[in-house]
């Protein structure tokens, strides 16, 4: 290039750049889109993190969390050290909420169905249009007098989100609000109500107990409030305030994570947990460990559960039952608990009741180290409506009593067996709306999708359940500005109320859910001056509450309860748990359990959870069938081989994992994988064992038993390598995990701390 050309080129280019600049300025005034970082948004210091408190909603436990925010992005979730439920700890699932917030498969904005139902073929629409369609539909229902044909199916909610929803539904004069999830612990609530007359699930004071009988409760992993209970477990073992080390006996047919930590494993026959518990109770009365005035009444009530007979039903020797009974009665305080494993049979309610009887006889109700009775939250009782389970919705849909269904955070197509025909039932509903953030199996059926905020973007509050002996309220506040074009759960209803008319808006009395929440709390504050001991004005109280993460006041739980003979009598099992399929054709029990990382399947779309090795099998990114090595060798099954598991209701095929911690007469599969929708990380990965279950709702509780069928195994040939992280599971004398016996430990005396 010549020098002259170069100068020309520069000149033209320069003039062009200048023109562009001028046009650019003419089009948009400076500062309209671009704000220099010299005037940073509030709270933003590049490189410095701020921490905000909120509520964890990944399961129902209600832990308090702190979220690390840097440059308006959520970076990490940690337990709130002040919060009485989790005291700073947080489980894997709670921490992985970030990956739901920033998930690439989140719904970007409101959607309308274009293709066939279930095809997940949607087009994007605006919020206005979507709300118009829904508001019109609901207004029509109300006008034509079919308001009760609106059904609402939601995951259990609490606090002001529930209050808003209840008000909305009652203003619309529809009684059909169903709170449903797979592990809702309805059996526990029902048994407590019948035997003790309390609705709340008690606080299990694991930290202070000396001897614990756990009937299938995987409290370290997934049951009720795992972080709180794990904390209790740590204290029970090596708490600095304790004189001695507590013992844990795990009674379950498949060794769970909690069972792996127990001092003793009692591999009871599946479905006979209730009988074993009652037999231990009988022995306590018979041997005179229970000295109440009504001992003889208890003895006659429990007389059909003598250890010699129970031994036949449970596969546990009479001597063992005597021994458990002696130790349970002799180590005060002792605690018995019944978890998902034992509650998921058709006789689950009886097991929960039997465990209450055990605690009653051992004098462990309402005492430190036993069951501490919770009282209701600040907003009054939040009870489970036993009449309203998933079955009530499906029945209504089948008899064309549902004209519109709104879904929130729940996925019944995944969590109900194929035998329930939920898909056909839902297909009969003319109009389905989903508020889900992801296209899951049920949302794929929706006609309209109004994606609600992720809880990390939304307002709300919640009461811990089970609480810790005194009420604990946690406030949920937005951590980050919305990632997608979504709206707050409460705000959707407030917007809807003004669209549909009919006096719904007047009942809700707020323009935004933030106002609704704040005024709700103002009301609570005015009514109950004890909240701040009268020293703070409401604004200061509110600010303090947002800073701390919620409201609670530590108190000694004083509420007492007792198991009544009459209540107990109603709940004794009339027969052992039912398993479909005869023993000859289907030789193995099938036991399902919630996956450690996915719970009831709701976290299968999080890559961290997919990659987290299962604590007992170390399998990642898929499902496996747990088989006892002896059973497997009898059938010629090796690890990784494909096995068809067939029940009278269907079959699934998956890879085998040889697991020594399982009875030879059963197999187990984790719930959580096998999604047909739900994003790139979950879709078409593993199998969903719920598919092959029978469908029979317990009329008392409205829940469906998970462990209720027998299966047969068909070896389908050698498979590929199982994606797992473990190598050799035997220590081979390397002395990696060193142990001492409890005798040696006692000799060590009091340790330094």
């Amino acid at each position, binding site marked *: 290039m010549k020098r002259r050309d170069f100068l020309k080129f520069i000149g033209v280019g320069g003039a062009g750049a200048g023109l562009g600049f001028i046009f650019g300025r003419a089009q948009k005034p400076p500062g309209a889109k671009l704000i220099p970082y010299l005037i940073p948004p509030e709270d933003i210091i590049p490189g410095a993190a701020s921490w905000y408190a909120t509520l964890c909603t990944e399961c129902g436990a209600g832990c308090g969390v702190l979220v690390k925010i*840097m*440059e308006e*992005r959520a*970076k990490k*979730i*940690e*337990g709130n050290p002040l919060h009485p439920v*989790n005291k700073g*700890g*947080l489980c894997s699932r709670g*921490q992985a909420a*970030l*990956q739901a*917030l*920033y*998930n*690439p498969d989140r719904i970007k904005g409101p959607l309308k169905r274009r293709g066939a139902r279930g095809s997940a073929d949607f087009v994007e629409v605006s919020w206005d249009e979507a709300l118009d369609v829904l508001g019109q539909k609901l207004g029509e229902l109300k006008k034509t007098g079919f308001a009760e044909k609106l059904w609402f199916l939601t995951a259990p909610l609490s606090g002001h989100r529930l209050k808003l929803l209840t008000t909305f539904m009652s203003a619309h004069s529809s009684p059909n609000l169903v709170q449903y999830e797979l592990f809702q612990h309805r059996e526990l609530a029902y048994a407590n109500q019948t035997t003790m007359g309390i609705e709340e699930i008690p606080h299990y004071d694991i930290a202070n107990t000396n001897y614990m009988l756990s009937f299938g409760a995987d409290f*370290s*992993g997934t049951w009720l409030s*795992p*972080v709180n209970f*794990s*904390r209790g*477990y*740590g204290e029970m*073992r*090596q708490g600095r305030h304790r004189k001695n080390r507590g013992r844990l006996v795990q009674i379950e047919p498949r060794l769970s*994570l909690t069972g*792996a*930590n127990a001092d*003793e*494993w*009692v*591999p009871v026959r599946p479905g006979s947990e209730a009988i074993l518990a009652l037999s231990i109770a009988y022995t306590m009365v018979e041997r005179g460990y229970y000295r109440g005035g009504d001992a003889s009444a208890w003895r006659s009530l429990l007389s059909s559960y003598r250890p010699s007979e129970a031994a036949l039903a449970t596969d546990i020797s009479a001597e063992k039952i005597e021994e458990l009974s002696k130790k349970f009665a002799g180590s005060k305080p002792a605690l018995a608990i019944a978890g998902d494993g034992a509650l998921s049979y058709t006789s689950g309610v009886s097991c929960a009741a039997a465990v209450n009887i055990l605690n009653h006889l051992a004098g462990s109700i309402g005492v430190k180290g036993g069951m501490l009775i919770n009282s209701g939250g600040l907003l009054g009782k939040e009870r489970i409506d036993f009449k309203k389970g998933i079955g009530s919705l499906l029945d209504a849909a089948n008899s064309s009593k549902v004209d519109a269904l709104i879904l929130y955070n729940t996925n019944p197509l995944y969590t109900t067996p194929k035998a329930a025909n939920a898909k056909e039932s839902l297909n009969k509903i003319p109009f389905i709306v989903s508020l889900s953030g992801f296209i899951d199996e049920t949302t794929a059926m929706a006609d309209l999708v109004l994606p609600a905020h992720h809880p990390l973007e939304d307002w709300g509050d919640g009461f811990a359940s089970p609480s810790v002996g005194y009420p604990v309220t946690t406030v949920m506040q937005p951590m980050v500005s919305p*990632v997608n074009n979504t709206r707050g759960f409460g705000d959707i209803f407030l917007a809807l109320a003004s669209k549909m008319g009919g006096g719904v808006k007047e009942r809700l009395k707020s323009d935004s859910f933030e106002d609704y929440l704040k005024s709700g709390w103002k009301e609570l504050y005015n009514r109950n001056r004890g909240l701040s001991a009268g020293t703070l004005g409401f604004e200061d109280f509110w600010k303090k509450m947002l800073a701390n993460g919620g409201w609670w006041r530590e108190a000694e739980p004083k509420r007492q309860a007792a198991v009544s003979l009459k209540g107990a009598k109603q709940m004794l099992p009339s027969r052992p748990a039912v398993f479909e399929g005869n023993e000859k054709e289907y030789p193995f029990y099938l036991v399902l359990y919630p996956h450690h990382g996915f719970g009831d399947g709701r976290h299968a779309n999080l*890559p*961290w959870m*997919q*990659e*987290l*090795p299962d*604590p*007992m099998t170390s399998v990642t990114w898929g499902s496996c069938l747990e088989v006892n090595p002896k059973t497997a060798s009898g059938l010629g099954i090796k690890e990784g081989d494909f096995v068809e598991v067939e029940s009278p209701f269907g079959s699934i095929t998956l890879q085998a994992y040889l697991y*020594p*911690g*399982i009875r030879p007469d059963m197999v187990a599969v984790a719930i959580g994988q096998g999604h047909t929708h739900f994003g*790139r990380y979950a879709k078409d990965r593993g199998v969903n064992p719920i598919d092959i279950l029978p469908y029979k709702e317990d009329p008392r509780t409205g829940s469906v038993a998970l462990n209720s069928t027998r299966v047969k195994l068909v070896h389908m040939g050698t498979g590929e390598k199982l*994606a797992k*992280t*473990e190598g050799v599971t035997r*220590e081979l004398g390397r002395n*990696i*995990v*060193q*142990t*001492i016996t*409890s005798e040696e430990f006692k000799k060590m005396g009091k*340790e*330094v*701390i």
Partner: protein
Amino acid sequence: MDGIFKRILERLRAYRVPGYYEKFDHKWTMVVDLDRCNGCEACVTACYAENNIPVVGKEQINNSRQMSWIRIERYVDGEYPNVKVKFIPIMCQHCSKAPCETACPVYATYHNQDGLNVQVYNRCVGTFTCATYCPYDVRRFNWFTYKWDKPLDEQLTPDVTVREMGVMEKCTFCIQRIRAAKDRAKDEERTLKDGDVIPACAQSCPTGALSFGDLQDPNSMVSKLAKSPRRYRLLEELNTEPSVIYLKRIMDNGDESH
């Protein structure tokens, strides 16, 4: 000129010779109470979130290329029904006489004044030697430059480097938290005190099995716990002098169980 050269050589030798330092500023130590640990893996997820650890997917798991800096190992003894299961969290042991440090040809891994075994990503050329020398299998190699599907990358912490292909990485005892705590202490014109530094794993642990602190501070929690008669260190016979102290689990064998 010669003198400078000699001094540089001396410094390099300092990194190279285990136990060269006479005096450490700190002796960061982790105590793991195996009797409290229930194997719930909350620490594993906490570490993924804190340290920008990539998810590798099923195929790479099959090639044993998972990147977790802390893992829960599980050992099974006995046959049904006398099965005993034991858990142990294993992370970089930050050995005082670390075999990996003597192995690295480019001094990418060395011992710093805090008693930490540190990895300099910029120096690492990926010879894999350190991972071969490590008896605890805690070093993780980036076989690929892993990608985060957008917008999952918004979660990445700017406090920690995102590593690329060909670089070795491992647990750092959350060195970014140690640095931050030191800065804070300096701003407040005080020395570090016990509890100032809590790594992500110890922070999240629901059972309180993990404790972290300075072993040189006689009043720190770890100093007290380290005196426990239950103490042992992993593969102690190799004489690597790890900075992680385990407390033995209490477990009865045989007759007590079913």
